[in-house]
């Protein structure tokens, strides 16, 4: 049975690999690891600027309709209009502006879901690892169950049942995330727990809460930060998928997944509706994944084996 569980946890960890994280390529070599990956960093900075400055940068309002200008191709194509760089959609809305505003949705959802899911995972991980015993095995059982089950089904159901919106979205994604964090944080806590300063704190009569909060928490923060950064890309993908399936932030607020979905039925005549948001998702997820890999190698190289 022990072997079975071990197999399961291997499965679970590598399952995460599929979802967007894995050991970095050894090909890059150790010497290069400490160097910041410039291109991904630039893409991320550009995204944050685009999201934060969308009202200033965007040439149009993302929801402003202009039916005479509907389905205009990008400016460089025949029939394009310099007013609309990336063309317009069925309702004559500017694709570029929607793209810029869409970045806001992706980043807001990613940040909120990561903080919520991450915090729960961190708390469960520390508790489970530190307290051990029956609480630990019950919590880890729940974690295993959550990880083996196709959680997106529940997320989809939740997203629709509680009404579409930012809060539901964050809740649904946090529900998928927490178990991944809990498992790895717990592993870290187990190693920290055995160190001398924890024993000393216990001898000194510190309360368990204090030991967990003051002595253990700071020591798993690096791992936690790395996990956060490694999961940003994954969260953006989940958000986009849910939006694509019509369970995301409701229209007219533009989000990338929903833009791809809207463009789907016009793909034969208007490729510029679906392509740009897809490319945006791809680039951002790629950039965050590469950045996360780098951060892990820098802050917590041991995590390579686990994540």
């Amino acid at each position, binding site marked *: 049975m022990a072997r079975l569980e071990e197999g399961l946890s291997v499965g679970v960890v590598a399952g995460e690999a599929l979802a967007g994280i894995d050991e970095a390529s050894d090909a890059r070599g150790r010497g290069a690891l400490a160097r910041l990956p410039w291109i991904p960093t630039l893409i991320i900075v550009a995204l944050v600027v685009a999201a934060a400055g969308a009202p200033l940068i965007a040439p149009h309002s993302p929801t402003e309709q202009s039916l005479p200008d509907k389905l205009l191709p990008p400016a460089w194509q025949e029939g394009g209009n310099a007013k609309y760089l990336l063309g317009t959609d069925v309702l004559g809305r500017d694709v570029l502006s929607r793209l810029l505003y869409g970045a806001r949705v992706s980043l807001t959802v990613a940040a909120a879901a990561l903080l919520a899911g991450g915090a729960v995972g961190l708390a469960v991980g520390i508790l489970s690892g530190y307290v051990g015993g029956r609480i630990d095995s019950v919590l880890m059982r729940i974690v295993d169950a959550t990880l083996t*089950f196709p959680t997106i089904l529940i997320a989809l159901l939740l997203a629709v049942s509680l*009404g579409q919106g930012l809060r539901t979205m964050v809740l649904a994604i946090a529900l998928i995330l927490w178990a991944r964090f809990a498992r790895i944080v717990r592993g870290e806590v187990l190693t920290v727990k055995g160190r001398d300063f924890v024993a000393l704190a216990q001898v000194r009569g510190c309360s368990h809460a204090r030991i967990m909060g003051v002595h253990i928490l700071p020591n798993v923060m690096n791992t936690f930060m790395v996990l956060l950064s490694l999961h940003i890309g994954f969260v953006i993908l989940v958000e986009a998928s849910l939006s694509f*399936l019509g369970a995301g932030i409701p229209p007219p607020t533009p989000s990338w997944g929903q833009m791809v979905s809207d463009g789907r039925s016009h793909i034969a005549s208007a490729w510029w509706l679906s392509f740009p948001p897809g490319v945006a998702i791809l680039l951002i997820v790629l950039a965050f994944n590469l950045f996360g890999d780098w951060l892990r190698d820098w802050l917590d190289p041991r995590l390579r084996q686990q994540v």
Partner: protein
Amino acid sequence: MLLLVILALIVFALARVTGNPADLLLREDATQEDRAHLLKALGLDRPTHEQLLVFLGGALRGDLGQSIRYRKPAVEVFFERLPNTLTLVPLALFGAVVMAIPLGMSAAVYRGTLLDRAANAVAVLGIATPSFWLGIVLIYVFSITLGWLPSARMGSPAHYVLPAITLGAFLVAGMTRLVRSSVLEVLDSEFVKLARLKGVSEVTVLWKHCLRNAMIPVVTLFGVFFALLVTGAIVTETVFAWPGVGRLTYEAVIFRDYPLLQAIILLKAVIVLGVNLAVDILYAYLDPRVRYA
């Protein structure tokens, strides 16, 4: 088993807050009487705990209620669509394995070379590509621009190509990395060194000694892969208008078809858990060191 019961409760509870299907089914000019009549017909007028008992009792007998949209037993609707998904999923899985094993193995054997980098690039890109978008791009390139392959629904074998690629693509990415790291580990082990010292040919070392052992973690993950495919099929089948259970899930969500959605989630859970069990057994067969007490 316990997992299933808990799941059933969660699904039931969630479905209750999904908004009322009566509002979707009734026309705008429906009277209060029509509404009450419909609720009664659907059993939604009874208290929640009674609904729960009816649901659980039925579930034990294999009856998960009537689909509101199809006006047929939900289980029946599910199993009508299931074969369509069960032809697609193994195809995607098979395609992914056929791609990932040679790719991962050669990346490990020619570690650090251009080939390794290329395999890594494929993996990194594959993981970052949203599959719904990939599907649309494939439709644009191969159906609309080139006109080689059909873009939607089922029919000839050609209909399978694009959905299978879309569904399998991100598996290839994850699996390639997994095979690579697994082969690297095995290549470093004592028995591979011994086989080489014995003078066993490199081909035999790789394909027999190495692959069989390197496959163990991959097989362990088949359950996870399968669960991922079941999930991925929702998006892929939606993109390609594929009449399988993935698209059925999407429709059940969009049309607020409670009983159908409950049935789908529970049946999918049963299937995923069943596959996990089968994988564990296969795992024990591949790795004789594993013994279940």
